[in-house]
């Protein structure tokens, strides 16, 4: 068993407040939403479990008997009823992407429905082939706009393409990124101002 304080990255004499804060930060970091469709979803889930256990354990050790606040991590499950691509879904879930692609590629053209495109997109996504994943997801959504599974996959991809996403919104660079023109004159000025203030502090 790991030391629960190490798991949360706090010292054993941290206050309850500090522990709660560390726990919240980590829970946010490993939140399943950040790893939707990712091949590392299970790793994140594992980490989340460790964090939850550590937090519970510390609370028990401190005999506060507080609520645990454990977030139920659900991961992505693909069990929405009958599907002719069940084998593909199982392959994807097990990260057996080559096998999944084999089955998909052997499907005749006329049987390639929205779900087929969705699953193909999922294969590409798992491999890190973001561009083709996006195209396939888009096709799936266009063919079946009412399916929430396809829509959410498409949204995840789109969200990742801007910095306003998951763990990635902490930086100050998430503004004005849409036009791709990073450093404005304003930034340069403020940078110079900061620099001169710094210099003054050092007594130069």
């Amino acid at each position, binding site marked *: 068993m790991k030391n629960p304080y190490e798991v949360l990255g706090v010292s054993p004499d941290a206050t309850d407040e500090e522990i709660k804060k560390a726990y919240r930060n980590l829970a946010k*970091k*490993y939140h399943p939403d*950040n*790893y939707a469709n*990712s*091949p*590392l979803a299970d*790793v*994140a889930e*594992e*980490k989340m479990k460790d964090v939850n256990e550590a937090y519970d354990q510390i609370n028990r050790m401190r005999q506060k008997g507080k609520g645990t606040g454990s977030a139920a991590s659900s991961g992505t499950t693909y069990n929405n009823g009958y599907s002719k691509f069940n084998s593909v879904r199982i392959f994807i879930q097990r990260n057996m992407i080559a096998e999944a692609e084999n089955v998909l590629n052997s499907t005749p053209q006329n049987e390639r429905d929205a779900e087929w495109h969705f699953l193909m997109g999922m294969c*590409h996504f798992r*491999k*890190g*082939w*973001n*561009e*083709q994943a996006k195209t396939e997801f888009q096709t799936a959504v266009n063919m079946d706009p009412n399916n929430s599974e396809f829509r959410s996959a498409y949204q995840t*991809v789109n969200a*990742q*393409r*801007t*910095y306003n*996403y*998951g*763990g*990635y919104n*902490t*930086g100050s*660079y998430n503004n004005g*990124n*849409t*036009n*791709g*023109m*990073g*450093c404005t004159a304003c930034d340069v000025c403020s*940078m110079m101002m*900061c620099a001169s203030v710094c210099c003054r502090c050092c007594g130069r």
Partner: protein
Amino acid sequence: MFGYLQIDKAELKVREYEAYQSVYCGLCRQLGKDYSVFARFALSYDCTFYAMTLMALRRSCSGFDDGRCRFNPLKKCKYARCEDDCYRKAAALTVITVYYKLCDDLRDDGFFKRLVVRLIKPFFSHCRKKAQQRFPRLDEIVGNMLKAQQKVEQSPQPQMDETAHPTAVMLAEIMRAEGRDTMEERVLYECGYHLGRWVYFMDAADDYEKDKKRGGFNPFLLTEAENLRTVMNEVLSQSLARSYDAYNLLDITDFKGILDNMMLYGFPLRQQKVLAVPQGGNT
């Protein structure tokens, strides 16, 4: 690799910046020791990032030593002390990547550049042989990348994802080699894959105008998107975001501030600089 894996100095703490420099100097010194004075010119930010990642993962940096810069004896500098072969491995990667870069340059650059490359290649060829003996796997990974890249570029209608695949796999394999268990290997692979993809597309975005004029190969020439700049930005941002997600699953305590800085500020800053350069294409 191409020098995109840098810090954002303005966002670093002073002690973190000093630690970063001491790794940089340490790697430079190792290049001098293992290869020769001339190999020091091959020192790159990318390989400093690699050395730093290795030291962070293995927790092998045990302190800092005072010393002097070999190029400028008046300048004092610090060297990060390392208990195992992190520097040696990063130095090997440096000369191996330079060697393969030169091989690649021979294929498509102009006459004069080819001449220069021919002149310096024998030296790096010698270095690379030494490095290959020490780290055969590294040489194999980088060599495979070049072969796969040439194959993709010659294929009739490559997809954008395919063009980035060789570089992405290269960094993924290099990172995976450091995993201590299967789970960590998977996380490192994913992190490296998307970072490698990002580096490849950064280079492509950087060279877009040049390749367009001279008819070189460039993955962004494959898209017919109207708002090319936005597309570039989205492609790059997504790769960084996915790499960062994987990075977050690693247990890193040493140099964490510096690596976080690179992931969250340094790399996006490079991305913005590359995209902010005026280009003839549509914005």
